[in-house]
């Protein structure tokens, strides 16, 4: 998790690969540029911690043919790619990285909103259980974050059938995701005070 600083081109020069600098420069909205940059910084700090990445400018986010993001890391031996995911909203960016090749990971952060209570018919199924008592606004936001993290791990976005995808909470923030078409993932959700719901999903 990375709290967003003001957009800083100096940070971009330190953390971004040349291709990412071009992408960063194309983002016109300053707030969006700051969040985008923060998500990349968070991802590269994870790569430093998990993969031993020394120079963040030698890694960049690319996408598979299916549109799933991968972190490409270049070292003396060549380029390796790793499952990664980023999410940002309302001043907060998060990132997830799986250090083992050929795995899946998805992360989502949402600002708590009553909108998702009114949209619940689009994504909540009868079997969904977080396993933790939460007020309605929080519960619906968290369910959406869990399902969107799963959708990102599967590379589906809004193409996932959210209503038939079930969340089974284990009571301590850990959960399982089942989809009739796409299989099973594990996950972990967290409340990031004061107002964010965050979830990560990964291969079981």
């Amino acid at each position, binding site marked *: 998790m990375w709290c967003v600083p003001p957009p800083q081109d100096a940070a971009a020069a330190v953390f971004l690969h040349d291709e990412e600098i071009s992408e960063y420069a194309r*983002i016109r909205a300053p707030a969006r540029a700051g969040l985008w940059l923060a998500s990349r910084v968070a991802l590269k700090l994870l790569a430093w911690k998990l993969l031993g990445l020394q120079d963040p400018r030698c890694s960049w986010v690319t996408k598979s043919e299916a549109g*799933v993001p991968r972190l490409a890391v270049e070292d003396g031996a060549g380029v390796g790619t790793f499952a990664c995911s980023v999410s940002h909203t309302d001043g907060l960016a998060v990132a997830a990285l799986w250090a083992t090749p050929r795995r899946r990971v998805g992360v989502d952060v949402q600002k708590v909103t009553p909108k998702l209570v009114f949209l619940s018919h689009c994504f909540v199924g009868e079997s969904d259980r977080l396993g933790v008592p939460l007020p309605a606004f929080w519960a619906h936001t968290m369910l959406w974050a869990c399902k969107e993290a799963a959708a990102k791990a599967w590379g589906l976005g809004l193409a996932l059938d959210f209503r038939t995808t079930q969340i089974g909470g284990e009571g301590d923030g850990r959960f399982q995701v089942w989809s009739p078409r796409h299989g099973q993932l594990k996950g972990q959700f967290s409340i990031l005070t004061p107002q964010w719901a965050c979830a990560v999903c990964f291969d079981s």
Partner: protein
Amino acid sequence: MGRKVTAEERRKIFEDIRQFLADELEVNIEEITEETDVVNDLGGDSVIFLEIVEELREKYGIQVEVRTIGQYMLRKAITNIGQAVDALCEVIEKGEELVMAEQEGNAGESRSS
């Protein structure tokens, strides 16, 4: 089975989306054009897309599921509002058949990464 979307209906859908985004994201409506990128230019997210789809489903009597529209948008690499409007018009015209035909055409393609 869907129905033909007229040029006037397409213009109305664009104006509806434009107004919706201006209200929800608190931006000047004049800044929103067909070329505007909802995510990169306006800071929109998946919940905004969900809201737009639901609003249009209700307003225009679109019978298809959100998932169907999501599947179609996944294939088309949509980045700006004009492309999203065109995609929605195509979904209205062809309904579930559109995605079913695409799925059959891509039956051998793997989505794994």
